[in-house]
Every structure is written in C-alpha cells, then in structure tokens.
C-alpha cells in the first residue's frame, strides 16, 4: 500500500524494566527466546503489506540500529519499500529532546512529507501483539475518519494505567465513534484501553501537530491530541480482542515471556510468524543445540546454539546459553550467550545477555517466605556472579558487576548490587 506510511515510536526507556533498559530502549529488549520486542510491530507491518516505515529513536539506540539494519529481515528492501531509522537531530533554531510522542512525530514531519502518504499509522515499538492492520485501515476509510485509535478491553482495576475511551455502539464489536477519552484516569469511565496505535489522515495530523506544537508544553497523543479532537473531528475507536502484552513492569515482562510456553501458548510465536534479524548477535551462524545425557528439560523454549547438561524447567533460553551439569533453571529467562555453572540453581530469574554464573550458586533463593512466588531477581548485562553465593528474590544485580563487587556470599531478598 503506497498511500500509507508507518511510524514506530521506539525510543522509550521505561524505568520499571530496571536494568534491562539501562543500555537499550524497551523496544530492543530481547523477548521469547530469540526476538526483540520491536519484531512484533515490524512483523505485523510486513504481514499487513505496509512496506515503508520510519523508526523513531531516542534512548540508547545503538542496539536498535544494529537490529533494524536495512529492514531486510522484514522484507522492507526494494524500490518502494524501506525501513528508515530516524534519530533525534539538532535543528538550526531549537534542539530539544522529544517532549512526547506527538512531538517526536512533529519533529520528523519533513520525513513524512517526503513520502506524501494519505495515511500515517503511528505505532509503539514496545508492545507484544499480533495484528493485521488491514481491517483497521478499511474501517478508518469506511468511516471517513480523521483519526482511528485502537482499543482493547482490560480489567477495570488496571484501567487507570491506560488511555481510556468511551466508544459508542455505531459498529458494535468492530468499533465506533469516540465519545470520551481520558489519559490514565483515576476513575476510569470504561475498560477500553488504548493500544497507542493511531491511524491519521495525514492532512489532519499535520494540521493538529502544527496547531498544538506552538503551545510548547507537553506534547503527547494521549494527553494532548486525542481529547482535543473528539468534538471537532471524526475520531473513531477500533476494537482489538487479541493478545496484547503491555509489559511495563518486570513482572509483566516475565509473564508475557511465560505466555510463549505450554501446549497451546497464548503467544504462539510460530503461528504468529514473527521475524527477527538473524544477523544481530549472529543468530544464523550458531550450531544446533546440544543436549547431553545428563540433561532434563521440560516446558521450555530453547533456541539454537545452546549446550545443556543440567535441568531446565518452565524457562526460556536464548541462543548461546550453556547450562552445566547439575545446574537447575526454573521459571527463568536467560538472554543470549550466558553460562550457568555446575550445580547452580536459578529460580524466577531474568538474566540479561552475556552473564556468567559460577558454580553452586543459588539465585532467587526463597529466604523470605512473605514474598510471593513470582518475586523476580534480575541480573544485568555482562555481570559475573561468583561461585557459592546465595542471592534472594527481588534482587537486582547491576550490569558489569564482577565477583570483586560482592562483599558477602549472601545477598538478601530485595537487595541491589
């Protein structure tokens, strides 16, 4: 579709994801055994035949730039196809960081103008979901809408975390006109939460950004654009009923990963057809996984290039994980090129890339019985855990921590190194 251009906001960090987003934006966080979160919207675009996309960066973008490369992984190379990385830039007059999602689009409007699309589809690079955008586009056009935003039903108790809309019954299950919209309301008027997917008529988007851009305060689609369009424009809500992984907290991130496991997983990675960049971290050049006679694995996702001699249960192993003899891994996520030494035990651990764990250490050790079973311990990138230590639950080990940084052999639950 030549008349549509997609823009992905991929620069956000998300504090609650802790050390996982210290060196990369959330969209570049590894997920599901070999993917990055941004692979989900990119694959969705590919299957929706939207083949031109601008990707807006801001926070620590190098791993994302490597990952996107020229977009070939998502079939976005060709005469009228392309994935374009848009870093923040210094302008002649003003040069500030983006003041919000709308500002990010506003500051890159000359990129949009170059393509002169009829429609601009604005996506977040942070969410895990499978969606064909084609029915959304068709709905938008059939309503001659100026803006169509996508909403999904959430539990009312968590509705205060989202942009919440009241949608009329014009088209029942499909969607309807937006009657009201409130950003993160204390008392939510409905349980329809915004997926932060916005489809705009380009002319209307440009007009609204230019008008509001002058005001120079915060500049967000949710807070500043949508509520002020409801009365004067044709703003519609399109309803989405599929799986949606918001993953704003460590716990949500862990749960969404666990949703890839089981006999009929909620996130069916294979059937969703998610693609990734196989050159990033040389996924394509790794050998098949070796499972020795001493290994035992169940209900786990195991990528290639692993070497497993120990026990792995309900866990997700990215490429290049070595699990030595007698090591036990339960309910954990181990990202790229890490080693779990002989006899070490991991429970409810999220371990970032390039981590080395010594022998006979116990991480996620239940020393505090009051903590719930899913209190997670997070190991930062490139850290090295010595042998024979005990680390409790809810602990954080910062990136690049080395054995000499450990003053004691026992880290209590809730501590941070």
């Amino acid at each position, binding site marked *: 579709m030549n008349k549509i251009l997609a823009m992905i906001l991929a620069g956000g960090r998300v504090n609650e994801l802790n050390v996982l987003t210290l060196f990369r934006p959330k969209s570049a966080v590894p997920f*599901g*055994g*070999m993917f990055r979160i941004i692979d989900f919207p990119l*694959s969705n675009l590919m299957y929706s035949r939207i083949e031109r996309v601008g990707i807006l960066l801001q926070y620590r973008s190098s791993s994302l730039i490597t990952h996107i490369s020229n977009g070939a*992984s998502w079939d976005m190379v060709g005469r009228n196809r392309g994935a374009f990385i848009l870093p923040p830039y210094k302008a002649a007059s003003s040069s500030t960081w983006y003041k919000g999602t709308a500002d990010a689009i506003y500051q890159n409007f000359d990129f949009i103008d170059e393509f002169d699309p009829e429609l601009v589809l604005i996506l977040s690079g942070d969410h895990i979901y499978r969606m064909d955008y084609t029915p959304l586009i068709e709905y938008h056009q059939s309503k001659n809408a100026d803006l169509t935003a996508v909403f999904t039903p959430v539990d009312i108790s968590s509705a205060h975390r989202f942009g919440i809309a009241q949608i009329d019954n014009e088209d029942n299950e499909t969607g309807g006109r937006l009657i009201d919209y409130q950003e993160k309301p204390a008392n939510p008027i409905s349980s329809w939460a915004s997926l932060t997917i916005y489809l705009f008529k380009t002319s209307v988007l440009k007009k609204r950004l230019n008008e509001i851009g002058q005001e120079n305060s915060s500049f967000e689609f949710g807070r500043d654009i949508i509520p002020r369009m409801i009365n004067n424009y044709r703003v519609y809500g399109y309803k989405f009923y599929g799986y949606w992984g918001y993953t704003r907290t460590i716990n949500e991130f862990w749960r969404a990963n666990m949703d890839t*496991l089981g*006999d009929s997983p909620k996130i069916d*990675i*294979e059937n969703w*057809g*998610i*693609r*990734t960049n*196989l050159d990033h971290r040389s996924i*394509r*050049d790794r*050998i*098949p*996984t*070796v*499972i*020795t*006679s001493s*290994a*035992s*694995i*169940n*209900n*786990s*996702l*195991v*990528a*290639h290039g692993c070497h497993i001699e120990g026990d*792995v249960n309900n866990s*997700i*192993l*990215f490429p290049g994980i070595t699990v030595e003899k007698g090591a036990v891994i339960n309910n954990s996520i181990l990202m790229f090129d890490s080693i779990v030494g002989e006899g070490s035990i991991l429970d409810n651990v999220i371990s970032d890339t390039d981590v080395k764990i010594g022998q006979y250490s116990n991480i996620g050790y239940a020393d505090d019985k009051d903590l719930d079973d899913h209190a997670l311990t997070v190991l930062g990138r490139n850290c090295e855990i010595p042998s024979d230590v005990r680390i409790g639950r809810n602990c954080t080990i910062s990136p690049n921590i080395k054995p000499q940084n450990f003053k004691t052999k026992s880290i209590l639950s809730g501590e941070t190194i």
Partner: protein
Amino acid sequence: MDQILAMLLAGGVGSRLNVLARLRAKPAVPFGGIYRIIDFTLSNIVNSGIFKAGILTQYKPYSLMKHIGTGVPWDFIGRKRTVKILPPATGEKYSDWYKGTADAITQNISFIRSHHPKYTLILSGDHIYYMNYISMVNFHILKNADITVGMMKVPMENANQFGIGVADSEHRIIGWEEKPPQPKSDLASMGIYVFNTDFLFHILNENYGTDFGQHIIPNTLKTYRVFAFPFTGYWQDVGTIQAYWETNMDILKSTTKLNLQNWKIRTNVEEEDMETDRSPSYIGRNARIKNSLISSNCIIEGHVVNSILSPGVRVKQNATIKDSIIMHDTIINENSEVDYVILDKNIKIGVNCMIGTGELTTSNIKNPDHLRSGISIIGKGCTIPDNMRIGRNCVIYPNVIHFNSDYITCGATIESAI
C-alpha cells in the same frame, strides 16, 4: 588470498547415498541438523581467506543453487569476492556432459581465465572436514610443485576406495593407482588439488585425460613436480549411508574431532517458501531428550535419544526416536517408535508405527553392499500410515504414500505403491 580461485566440483550423483541423493546432488544432502554437506567445503574456503569460488554443478542442481544463493551466508559478497554457480553448458567445442573431473574444469576454463588467479584450488563438495587451504598452497609454493594433491592415511582395508599414492620422503608422489584392488600404500587422495593456473591450462590443453585421479595425476607425475600434502585432521567421505550415519553421530560424541562450533561452519538458513523465521524449539512437559542435537523450531513432546533433529521436526507424546537422523519438518506422531532410521524431509509418520523394527535378518535386497548394518531410510515427502511396521535395512522411495501391507520386512525396498 587474492591469488587463489577455488573450483568446487559439486556435480556428484551420490548413488550410494540411495534415496537421500535421489532428488538432490550429493553436496546438497542435509547434514548435522541444519547444514548441507557442501557447507563444510564452502566454509573452509572462506575461513582460509579465499573469497573467489566457482561451483560446478551437473546432477540435480536445483537444491544446490537455492542453497548457495548469492553466497551471503559465507560472506562471499564484496567487490573482490564472488561465488558463481557454473552449470554445464553447450558450447561450440563442447556439447557433452562432463567426462570426468578434469573435463569439468576444461569446460569452465573461461571462468578461471576471467579471474586470472595465480593458483587454482580444485575441491570436491562431498566431504566432512576442516582444513586451512592456505597451508596447502604454502606447501605447494615451498615445494615449487606443479600439482599438489591433498592426501591422508586411511585404514588399509578402505584404501581400495580411493586414489592411492606412493610418496617419497620429500612428499613427492612417485606412484599412483586409482581405486586399486591391492593397494601399495595407505596414502589416499582427498580429491583436493592445487595447480599453478598456467600449468593447469597447459595440462588441460595436452591430451593427458579427462579425470584428475584417473589420468592427469598418474600421467604427469614422472615428468612434472607432483606432491602430496599430508593432511592429518578429521576427514570423512560421507559417500555411503553407513558413513553418512556414523559421521552425523560423530557430532554427538564428546571425544570427537568433528567440532561444528570451532570449525565455524556456515550455512544458508533461509529456506524458500518460509515466510517466518524458524522460532526457538519448544520442549514439552513429558519430553525426554538425551545426547542429541536439536535444531530450531522443533516441538518435542516425546523421547529423543542419540539422534539428530533438523529444524521443524515434531515428536509427539510417547513417540520415541533413537539413534536416528530426522530432517526438516518431519512429524512423528503419538506412540510411534523410530529406531536406527534416516528420515528425509517432510515425512509424516502416523500413530503407533514402528520404523526400524524386528530382527536384522538380511541386507537390503536391492543394495546388499551398501545397506547391511540395519539402517532403514525413508525418502522425502512420504506418508507412513498409522500402525505401520517397517523392518531393518529397508528403503522407501520419496513421496510414497500408499502401502499395500502394514509390514515391510527386513531388506525390502518400496519404490512406489505396491
């Protein structure tokens, strides 16, 4: 090394690989889960720092052409790099199939000429090994040789399968016999040759013969400087089903010298008609896997022991795979047992089947020499109905889906529905 051009002879029929090589050339036969046999030679070329190669095809080249693609997986892309598929062509002078290895090179001489390399390295795409060809070229230069042949010691009882040379203490070849019934030495040719390109052109112009092993080497060694480069590493000719199975299993041995990781073997993981990437493998709650190589995108709910699984293999509940090689996207359904079997790609095994079962009473009746240890092979795309039993040393040709009996006895070959 800009001065070296590699010419890879990849046209072999591989008839002793039986149904595995029925729809593809031998170098394109899958190996080690995700690889094809030719990946070893291609990776050796690039890992030796040689970035120009021509690949000569002849027999069923389609899988091979798809696999090589643009050469990206082996890093053949760049201004001074190239990998080209050279199919047989009818020309004014030549309009026949290749009459031998030297004839194949002769017919592609213009490709060599266009790259004007100082040395031409002639390789075969049929072997599993790791070798730095630069040390062989350096040996060639040091010896001031006209031809250098890569050679290694093999067990005497196997020597009759190879070109066998006799070398003096300076490694100069002074005698040569091709596949001799009574070998005079155990020094076997690996089918690897380094030529000074000018000398190669000269030799091919004279009437020395159409095959390097059969004619050129024996006919030139008296007049020219022909040397044996002594190779001592791991090298396997996977030309027979038995050798193919054993070499695959070598990957699983902790003592093996076959080390995919250290050898830096690259392959092309892109497959046609695959819209998605192969996702990580899922290992279910009742799965049990011992001493096996598991590629991506498998779903394993049953038992896998001492086996090699390519991408996309499905092993359902209570199914058991033992001592077997299972290729891409093959499905083994509930309660079926697969023992000492090679299953090619896209095979469906029904429920309650026993594949590779019963006593070993006879060799394969059609191919008694090549299939006698008990391995059964099922060709690409077969569907094996529920409750079927297939004995040992059996061969099922590709795409067979109807069987008239639910028991295939030891040694039988099924070519089509009977």
